């Protein structure tokens, strides 16, 4: 299958457990071992209590559509997903927000609403790279 998106570049060392997890269909999130704060994106210190002791937890993969847009053109030559498509900010049940796409949905602003429940769908791009996309929950 042709790769229809830019591959993540660079893939940084502090994010390795995240990318490793995705290959096994697991959405892993960094979690501070000192204060328990689950955060996004991967960093070597906790953005809340600034401790340097970071572990990882598996997300349940559920959350809400915090905000969205409908893309009517591609903004990157390597992004070849057909228009229109849904650009999404998802708020995970564990707390952090991440950017992704909402798929398996009609890309019509009249039919979408902030705060609807969503769930993760894993999309394998290469042997190295699997991305977490989202769809309306309970499909």
């Amino acid at each position, binding site marked *: 299958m042709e790769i229809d998106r830019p591959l993540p*570049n660079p893939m940084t060392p502090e994010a390795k457990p995240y990318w490793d997890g995705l290959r096994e269909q697991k959405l892993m999130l960094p979690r501070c071992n000192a204060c328990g704060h689950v955060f996004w*994106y991967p960093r070597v210190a906790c953005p809340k209590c600034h401790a340097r002791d970071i572990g990882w937890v598996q997300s349940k993969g559920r959350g809400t559509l*915090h905000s969205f847009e409908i893309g009517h053109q591609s*903004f990157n030559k390597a992004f070849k997903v057909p228009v229109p498509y849904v650009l999404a*900010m998802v708020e995970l049940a564990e707390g952090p927000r991440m950017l992704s796409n909402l798929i398996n949905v009609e890309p019509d602003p009249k039919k979408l609403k902030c705060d609807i429940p969503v769930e993760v769908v894993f999309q394998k791009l290469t042997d190295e790279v699997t991305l977490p996309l989202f769809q309306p929950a309970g499909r």
Partner: protein
Amino acid sequence: MPNLRDLSSVACIVGVDESDEMGTLPHKSQLSLHVEAVTNAVRDAGLKMSDVDGIFTAGQHSPATIGEALGITPRYVDGTTVGGCSFIIMVGHAVAALHHGLCDVAVISHGESGRSQVGVSPRRDTAIPGQYEAPYGFGPAPTMFGLITTRHMHQYGTTLEQWAQVAVSTRKWAALNPKALRREPITVDDVLKARPVVWPFTVLNICLVTDAGGAVVLTRADRARDLAKKPVYVRGLGEGTEHVSLTQMKDLTFSEATRISGDKAFRMAGVGPSDFQHIMLYDAFTSGPPIMLESLGIAKRGEGVRFFEEGRSTPGGSLPINTNGGGLSYTHTGMYGIFPIIEAARQLRGECGARQVPNLRTSLVNGMGGMLSAAGTLVLSNER
């Protein structure tokens, strides 16, 4: 204890200007746009290039590059680059440097070949956008600011028609500015029916992309009074940053950086949010200015758009906003922040002809960097 008020009105804007031309300039490099703007602004101040000993610039070129191109050897440099508002923030940095004698004549320089890309270095992915944004189709600013805009609509019931009023109001000002790129009148319907780019934005909700330069010259207040033009006092200044990645912004509908920068500037100047007769806001998108008014405490949460839909912001209105025609209709190179300073200074000097705001004493300049990520605020006045 240091007192913020000690910095109020110690320095003035004494020279402002743009590059010789603005618009689509494939025959000019980015560096030439800097040099043209600085030359013009120094002449506007009635100073010589050799008087300049402080260089401030943001973006791809370092202050050392600008100094070399101008043929001067500065003894103070600042290259703070936190997005388009960097130039607004640098007015504050220049005031502090001038106050302490670190330099005597400060130039803030902007040049950007945003449209033609002449003499521009290619962008490289960095860890965060390359890893967590680009694979989903996120990239240029509209793909981010739309998320802020959609959430505001969800939380406050703001409508596409209301955002469009910002474009309509700003275009009315552009019609009065001979330097504005787009001057033909537009309606709310024109904005709604324009080419969709990324919902909730059509192309008329998004700023222009142009080639231009701009520069601002400052010196201490005692010297300013003897120069060519009426001095514009920097009564208050403030800056702040909250985030870079939009996922790290606490509340998508409210800019903490803007609030912090405004609070500091207002306290220094001894003014409140309702003490302005003229406002310049960074309008990369139609939804920006209303959210900035809300974050500065000038409008209640969710009500910033009312300044535009009720006609207060337009020519003849009670609170003129973006009187140069803004990034939406006058010019927007990419890092727009120098241009609202230039317009506020010209308004306070009374040089604006058909678009002149009458009886103006105090003007507010506020701009963002990134996606409301950083902010700079200035309280400018033609009286001390």
